[in-house]
């Protein structure tokens, strides 16, 4: 049951709602706390916790490359499988042995980053609304990754492989859908067939390829989706895996012998964590737990407490089809399509309600969303229904109306960052946006060059972890003149400050604001730009910013 736009679900008891939100807030704070620690060592750009998805891709490619190498030397015979891996490990340790270790440890690392990625996106509330698709397509990947890892261990055909083969086939048999028991293939050494190994090799190659397809689908609804970690992080991670491979090479255990039951087994807990349960609960119960858990994960985006923002809408009279909103939308929710009216432009922006998260980044990219417009009503080409750009200008002007002093600051923050209310003061006005990148650079220009305030302070999510993926990055590039629409050169940069504090660094945020105000007080008075009418129509604005 979906919840109404911009509201919490009324059918959840308030106590439960508070509890859910409370747990999530604690978990979010924990993640941000960890982020703060990692940011210090790695810098926000390299913070591995902000690159869990790309690290997952990186580990996947390490597994693929090392797997291709291993496959060249791997023999699929019952006895030959073990022997070929022993050759790689002991004789060709410098290449085959390292590749085998990389193959194993990258697979294990993939499990860690995948689980953290899932948990982080859940905690950060980045799976609902129009973001359901990415979450939904990620769930099958869990099964595929486990299928790849388990089938890989099987191929070694040591005692661990023997245990996995028997436990897995017994578990499959418990489904009751197979005419003959699959586990009977592993009754004893006489019943073992080499064909099963051929099947496992096929599965171990086919499943990763299918996984790549699902991974590709997984990122389809994200614009500028990143699939590679920063080079420095990739080099460090690969170096770490290499060092681990040399220090603790992956080894086979004793060769499998179906006439003997494996008793004490060295276990890969990343992939086999659920297997011991098969010794204590019926296989069908484990299927129910795994299937029910997966179903719950799949349905999570639609379960309460749901929340969905109103989506952006296009005003054709003010849209010239310049495409800036298309370029900036992090979720590919805006596209350019042939004009449907008789305006003299070839294209118009079209918003897909299914994809739009209502972040407003497109509004920040629209050249017509400029508060300087005075001769015409302030209706931009693209706008948010629940916080239009005209309403934002009115709210801003109203908020700053009573500010006093020579360090008057307007704070534009996002609703996913630190608490903004605490910043409010006699010389500080606070405006909350869905995402700080909703703020067109012309707003900053307007506030400073018109003398409405002495400075503009931008804050929001933690650096490197924007709730809407690209808001912080786009804002930085617009201010630096690297991304259209640019902040005009006439705006004194020393009167602008940014603080990406997230939700945990309230004190630091307050401190940085105070420091910024002290800096403003020390600056000479700003000479205001002569006031003149700057009303622009869509086409004029586009030319103005081009």
């Amino acid at each position: 049951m979906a919840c109404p736009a911009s509201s919490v679900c009324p059918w959840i008891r308030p106590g439960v709602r508070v509890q859910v939100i409370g747990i999530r807030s604690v978990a979010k704070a924990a993640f941000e706390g960890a982020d703060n620690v990692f940011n210090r060592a790695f810098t926000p750009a390299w913070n591995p916790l902000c690159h869990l998805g790309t690290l997952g891709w990186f580990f996947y490619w390490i597994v693929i490359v090392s797997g291709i190498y291993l496959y060249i030397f791997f023999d699929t015979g019952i006895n030959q499988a073990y022997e070929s891996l022993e050759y790689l490990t002991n004789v060709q340790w410098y290449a085959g042995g390292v590749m085998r270790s990389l193959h194993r440890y990258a697979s294990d690392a993939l499990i860690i980053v995948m689980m953290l990625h899932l948990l982080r996106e859940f905690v950060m509330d980045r799976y609902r609304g129009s973001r359901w698709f990415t979450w939904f397509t990620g769930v099958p990947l869990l099964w595929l990754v486990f299928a790849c890892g388990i089938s890989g261990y099987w191929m070694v055909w040591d005692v661990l492989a023997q245990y996995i083969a028997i436990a897995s086939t017994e578990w499959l048999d418990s489904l009751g859908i197979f005419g003959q028991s699959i586990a009977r293939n592993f009754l004893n050494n006489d019943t073992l067939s080499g064909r099963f190994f051929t099947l496992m090799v096929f599965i171990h190659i086919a499943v990763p390829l299918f996984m790549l397809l699902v991974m590709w689908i997984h990122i389809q609804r994200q614009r500028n989706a990143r699939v590679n970690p920063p080079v420095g992080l990739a080099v460090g991670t690969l170096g770490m895996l290499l060092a681990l491979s040399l220090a603790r090479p992956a080894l086979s255990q004793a060769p499998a012998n179906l006439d003997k039951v494996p008793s004490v087994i060295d276990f890969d807990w990343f992939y086999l964590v659920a297997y011991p349960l098969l010794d204590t609960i019926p296989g069908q119960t484990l299927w129910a737990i795994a299937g029910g858990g997966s179903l719950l994960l799949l349905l999570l985006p639609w379960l309460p407490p749901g929340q969905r923002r109103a989506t952006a809408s296009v005003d054709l009279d003010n849209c010239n089809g310049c495409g800036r909103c298309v370029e900036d939308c992090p979720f590919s929710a805006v596209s350019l399509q042939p004009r449907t009216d008789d305006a003299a432009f070839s294209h118009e922006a079209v918003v897909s309600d299914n994809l739009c998260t209502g972040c407003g980044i497109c509004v920040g990219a629209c050249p017509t969303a400029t508060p300087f417009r005075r001769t015409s009503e302030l209706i931009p080409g693209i706008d948010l229904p629940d916080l239009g750009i005209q309403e934002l200008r009115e709210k801003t002007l109203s908020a700053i109306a009573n500010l006093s002093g020579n360090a008057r600051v307007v704070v534009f923050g996002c609703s996913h960052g630190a608490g903004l209310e605490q910043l409010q003061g006699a010389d500080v006005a606070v405006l909350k946006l869905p995402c700080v990148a909703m703020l067109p650079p012309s707003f900053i220009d307007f506030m400073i060059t018109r003398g409405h305030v002495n400075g503009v302070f931008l804050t929001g999510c933690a650096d490197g972890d924007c709730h809407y993926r690209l808001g912080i990055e786009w804002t930085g590039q617009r201010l630096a003149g690297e991304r259209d629409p640019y902040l005009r050169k006439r705006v004194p940069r020393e009167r602008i400050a940014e603080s990406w504090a997230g939700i945990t660094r309230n004190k630091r945020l307050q401190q940085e604001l105070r420091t910024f105000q002290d800096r403003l007080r020390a600056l000479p008075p700003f000479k205001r730009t002569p006031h003149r009418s700057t009303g622009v129509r869509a086409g004029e604005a586009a030319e103005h910013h081009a």
Partner: protein
Amino acid sequence: MPKALQYFGQFIAYALFALVVGYFATQPAYTHMDPDKALIKMSFSHAGEHLQECRRLTQEELNLLPPNMRRPMDCLRKRVALLIELELDGAILYRDELPPSGLAGDGASTAYRKFPVPAGSHHLVARLRDSRREDGFDYEQAAVVTLAPQQNFVIDFRPELGGFLFL
């Protein structure tokens, strides 16, 4: 933060990650079965008799059927459930009825059971009934077996080879 301290922090983070990956990739070891025990694994797939004996249709009954469906024998598809019993050292280790598989109950009954038992010498008896008889068993195999620790002792059933096989 000074650059050197940053690099040290990164080193610590990578080292911790490697430690977690390297350790949990093989440790702690999992004890699947007590090393002093042996495992008796019983597994077979066998179809019991049909629930009723086939009946030869009379000529009149055959004439009533379409020409392409005139099979001389009328057999009920459903089969009897197998009765299996394992006895270890004079005590019943396992006794169960194994229903036939398939929606119509016309498939083979299957069994796959594992029994960890102390290693050593045991008197083992396996019995199976696959007919419509009311009591007794159609197959029985008894043996004194000496099981080594961790031995996988398999009980299979192959009627074409005379019944139970102790492997």
